[in-house]
């Protein structure tokens, strides 16, 4: 019985990444139906992400529009070795939203990576599974919020400021009036803690 269930599970587990890669291939060939499906799948996630960064609904809607137009125009350049469509799309949306709240020269001045292409390290993604891959999309948000709440607040704050505001570690050190070494150590410890929580979660499913 258990073996039968095991095989049934193996046959049927949703392959979200495969589905999205196929969708991206269709989009790169100009398939607007596939693009419409991708829009429906991602609109809420990206809007929430962009809104958290720009903090204004009207601006967030404008950025969302720009992001999807960008996805359409850049889809030809996407392939699987660049990581999952999820990672590619959310990186694009996050960077676009951060650009909106910064001056035009901001990222140039601080010399962070500005072009998504430069940010890619080929074939990194496939070494490890997405820790929440087996989870319903509607539950991920709840779980990630809960996971972050389990991280000490002084570590969590630095991680959240970095991701959602795009601050470098030097900027965070100034902002929070902390030595750079302390910022680095707290962020490292916070990420390790987060990875352990996500891994525990994966193990418990």
């Amino acid at each position, binding site marked *: 019985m258990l073996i039968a269930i095991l095989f049934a*599970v193996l046959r049927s587990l949703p392959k979200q990444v495969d589905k999205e890669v196929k969708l991206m291939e269709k989009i790169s060939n100009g398939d607007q139906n596939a693009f419409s499906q991708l829009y429906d799948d991602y609109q809420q996630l990206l809007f929430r992400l962009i809104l958290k960064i720009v903090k204004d609904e009207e601006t967030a809607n404008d950025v969302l529009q720009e992001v999807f137009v960008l996805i359409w125009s850049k889809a030809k350049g996407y392939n699987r070795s660049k990581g999952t469509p999820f990672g590619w799309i959310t990186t694009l949306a996050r960077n676009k939203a951060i650009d909106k709240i910064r001056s035009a020269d901001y990222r140039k001045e601080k010399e962070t990576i500005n072009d998504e292409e430069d940010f890619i390290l080929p074939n990194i993604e496939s070494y490890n599974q997405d820790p929440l891959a087996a989870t319903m999309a509607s539950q991920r948000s709840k779980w990630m919020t809960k996971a972050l709440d389990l991280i000490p607040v002084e570590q969590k704050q630095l991680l959240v400021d970095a991701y959602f505001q795009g601050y470098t570690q030097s900027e965070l050190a100034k902002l929070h009036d902390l030595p750079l070494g302390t910022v680095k150590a707290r962020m490292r410890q916070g990420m390790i803690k987060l990875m352990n929580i996500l891994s525990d979660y994966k193990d418990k499913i």
Partner: protein
Amino acid sequence: MNKERFEDLCVVYALGTITKAEMEELRNALAEGGNEYAEILASYKNAGQQFAYATEEALPNPKVKDAVFEAINNNQKSEDSSSTANVTPLFGYLKVAAILILAFLSGYFYYNYTQLNEEVTVLEDTVEQQRFELLDLQNQLAAAEEYLNVISSRNTRLVAMGGLEPSPAAFGRLFLDQETSRAVLQIAELPATPEDKDYQLWVIRDGEDPVSAGVFSLERDLENYYLSIDDFVEQDAELIAAVAITIEPRGGMPQPTGDMFLLGTP
């Protein structure tokens, strides 16, 4: 490079705040550290990507979708018109001949170059695809074992669901681990979800309105389909009067509005 420095670089890479100089440092570290470092970086990257979910509920303006499609169709039209405009006149037969010869030679060398490049790309893609599939199978096996833990727990209760009129052959089982609140939903013989729809799982307690327990879609008709649900809306199976699955507009609804496909009682 020591491991602590490498992990500092992983953190800024994962959070998307890495500088160009740090990126160079990271590339060098990866070249030195091999698979071990690549796996560490992948773990950081995966964790970093989950931050996209740490947001509050909000919905975009529905008009944005129309605006996006209008923009891409306008861009397409302007590209099409620019590609057919501005035909430049040629000056004299000699220049025409020279241009044709140059064009022919360029085309010939370019063709050979692209053919070779394409072959290399195809081979690289095949290797990468196979490696990905192997990892995918390993991951699926791990996930299947994890599902079995829920299904075989001594605290697990089963709710069987039968198919209703839209799909009478369908059936489902909900395995609820009452100790951990984790559940596994097994669905069989349900038709693939239309593009603009999702299936929605409901829990009905005695005398109360249905409560949503999650939304999912099926890309194709499947003999069996399994989903894990963390923090199931009701931990105590005794309090569940019925469980149902309906079809709803994409993203789900606060209360059921569509056809009911599966219904079961504990």
